[in-house]
């Protein structure tokens, strides 16, 4: 193993160009890459989602699961030289995130955060919420109280040149071209970071991105940056490496959500028929080029709560047709039984192809699908307002089902106008009860038990059409070391990443 080298400039692909890189405000996945180099959270997580100290040196959870006490590091300074204190933490989790970040709000609203002394904070809960310790993730990074308190967070001038505690400082944003981060010489981890600076380059064309990695002009690309068949090709090049680790924290699942308020989706047999008509292996092999796993249910297979023993839907056109016949949806002269609409995810070619394949596969059993074109805003608006028949997207299930899974199925989470809630209108008292009980339980075994029950029910119900679990590749130059070291993968701080000569 080589010794780490100091110096060097990391050239990273970034696409699309994020609207901004202030943590909390800009939560687009492309914003996270630079944001996580500038800001830090209390904890980090390993591949098994176990917490490790970061800005918090140590922590303690009371046995009743109601009180979390964090001891903060003392030698940390903001990029502008101010000291990092408990006030910053209290402000971030008690004020800032609650206002700007809807998902963080859902978690931290449950807690009362206060400072014990300058370097100790405590989170107090009314009822236990086991996932809290897994919630100090890359969406919940700490912002400087002295610059934000009392201001209009969204219009704060510092948003354009964010001040954090991370190993890299914001230097320049050349619009349309790159974001430049420079080394933070006062970083609290002595001798780190290794890299002198990082350029995040906006390269809009996937083929160009692949070419740049191929020629060694760029060192790293991740998530959707590359077309998957390019990944396959690039992985065979001697100077490049590929890893699919580092997305455990997100655990994204691709699915089609149906509007259960409408015919024929309200009929379980119709949903099951569609499950039988679709070939998940095709999604995995052709559309996602092997960078996916077949999804069997609502919980990601990387989660400790995953239940493999659920009803399986292998592609079986006969079964699908039998179910449709049973429902009374007989084929007409053209073999057409019914016509439904699918709102595709407007995030690029891969998603177009997924929608197009779905249309072709369902047509084989007599279900005619009309694809509805849309755009990100239109998709979001229609989905959150329940204005769809079927909508395809991927949801990050975030390790713990209480954080990422139950939101889609709880009947009291049917919140029209809020994205990533229970858009479909699924309502099952049994499911509600199981999810609610599991969320407040502090007994890991009991939670596993409850979640596995819930999974069986939902899968049998075909509450959504599960397709695949996404596996995002990170392709990087072998000269780059310590790229993916934990659950946040390339979204880690890169303090110990280094470039060989």
């Amino acid at each position, binding site marked *: 193993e080589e010794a780490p080298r100091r110096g060097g400039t990391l050239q990273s692909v970034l696409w699309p160009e994020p609207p901004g890189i202030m943590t909390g405000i800009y939560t687009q996945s492309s914003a996270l890459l630079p944001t996580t180099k500038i800001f830090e959270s209390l904890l980090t997580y390993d591949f098994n989602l176990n917490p490790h100290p970061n800005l918090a040196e140590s922590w303690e959870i009371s046995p009743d699961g109601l009180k979390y006490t964090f001891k903060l590091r003392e030698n940390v300074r903001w990029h502008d030289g101010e000291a990092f204190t408990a006030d910053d933490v209290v402000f971030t989790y008690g004020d800032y995130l609650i206002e700007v970040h809807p998902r963080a709000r859902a978690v931290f609203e449950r807690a009362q955060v206060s400072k014990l002394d300058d370097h100790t904070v405590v989170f107090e809960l009314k009822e236990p919420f086991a996932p809290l310790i897994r919630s100090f993730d890359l969406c919940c990074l700490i912002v400087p109280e002295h610059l934000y308190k009392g201001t209009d967070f969204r219009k704060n001038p510092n948003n354009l040149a964010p001040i954090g505690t991370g190993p890299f400082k914001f230097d320049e944003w050349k619009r349309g071209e790159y974001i430049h981060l420079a080394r933070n010489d006062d970083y609290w981890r002595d001798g780190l970071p290794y890299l002198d600076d990082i350029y995040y380059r906006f390269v809009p*064309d996937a*083929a160009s991105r692949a070419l740049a990695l191929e020629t060694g002009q760029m060192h790293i690309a991740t998530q959707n940056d590359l077309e998957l*068949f390019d990944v396959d090709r690039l992985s065979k090049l001697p100077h490049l490496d590929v890893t699919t680790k580092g997305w455990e924290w997100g655990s994204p699942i691709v699915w089609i959500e149906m509007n259960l308020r409408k015919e024929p989706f309200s009929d379980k047999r119709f949903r099951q028929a569609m499950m039988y008509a679709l070939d998940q292996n095709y999604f995995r092999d052709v559309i996602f080029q092997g960078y996916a796993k077949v999804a069997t249910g609502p919980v990601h297979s990387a989660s400790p709560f995953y239940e493999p023993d659920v009803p399986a839907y292998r592609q079986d056109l006969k079964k699908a047709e039998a179910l449709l016949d049973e429902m009374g949806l007989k084929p007409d002269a053209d073999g057409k039984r019914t016509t439904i609409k699918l709102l595709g995810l407007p995030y690029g*070619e891969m998603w177009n192809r997924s*929608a197009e*394949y779905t249309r*072709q596969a369902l047509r084989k059993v007599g279900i005619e699908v009309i694809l509805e*074109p*849309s755009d990100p805003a239109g998709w979001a608006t229609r989905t959150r307002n329940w204005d769809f028949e079927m909508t395809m997207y991927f949801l990050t299930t975030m390790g713990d089902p209480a954080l990422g899974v139950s939101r889609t199925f709880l009947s009291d989470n049917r919140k029209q106008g809020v994205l990533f809630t229970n858009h479909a209108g699924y309502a099952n008292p049994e499911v509600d009860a199981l999810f609610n009980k599991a969320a407040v339980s502090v007994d890991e075994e009991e939670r596993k038990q409850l979640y596995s029950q819930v999974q069986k029910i939902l899968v049998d119900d075909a509450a959504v059409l599960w397709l695949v679990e996404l596996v995002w590749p990170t392709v990087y130059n072998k000269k780059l070391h310590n790229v993916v070291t934990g659950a946040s993968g390339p979204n880690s701080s890169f303090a110990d990443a280094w470039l060989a000569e």
Partner: protein
Amino acid sequence: MHSWRIGVGAVLLGLITVMAIAAPLLAPFDPMAISGPPLLPPDASYLLGTDMLGRDVLSGMIHGARVSLIVGLVSALCSAGIGITVGAIAGYFGGAIDRALVRFTEFFQVIPSFMFVILLVAILTPSLLSITLAISVVIWPPVARLVRSEFLTLKTREFVEAARSLGLSHGSVIVREILPNAMPPVLAVGSLMVATAILTEASLSFLGLADPNMTSWGYMIGSARPVFRHAWWLSVFPGLLLFLTVLSITLLSEGLGDKSNPSLRGQAGH
């Protein structure tokens, strides 16, 4: 000298039209159906290869001709309708009506038309209807200008005065006396509108503003863009056909419009 252009153009365009009409008979596969392994280079059974999902490129191209030609023709007809009406009224009646209509036309000529098309289609969401509509809305000004200038000269021609002094109404003077004489150059420019419309539709599709329920050339090229370095056949062949179509129409229009003013060409953009 110019008849060969009409000849070559007509033959080419004829072939493409026949292809579009007989698409279900000619295409070896259903253009939407997954009929083979993905990204297969051209070979004996998939003459022009397959795309990312394993759909036959040749079949897609053959069916894509329909969208291109329909959008081209319908937009050109609509825009000719708008252009002729505006131009004829402005040129014939003159005065304040003319000034107002000229301003109106100028406005549509000044605005960055392709951006306007993009905006319209994006806002109305892409469909055959919205695309055709948006294209028609921006490409008519050259027709209107041409018709107006033809009317300005023709209306002072003595046969028009003669028709008026024989007691014909304004309507029949416009429609039966002047318009037929203004038609040849309008036909030339109008046929060029077809080409412009086809190119605009392709450009829109290329940018992702396409109706996903139809195969079109621009859409094929646009969706193949991520892979065009490896699967060149996905963008080269549809582009070639698009090019040939536009070329044939341009040849035809050149031939037709040889006598009309060529400076009116090249108005609407890509």
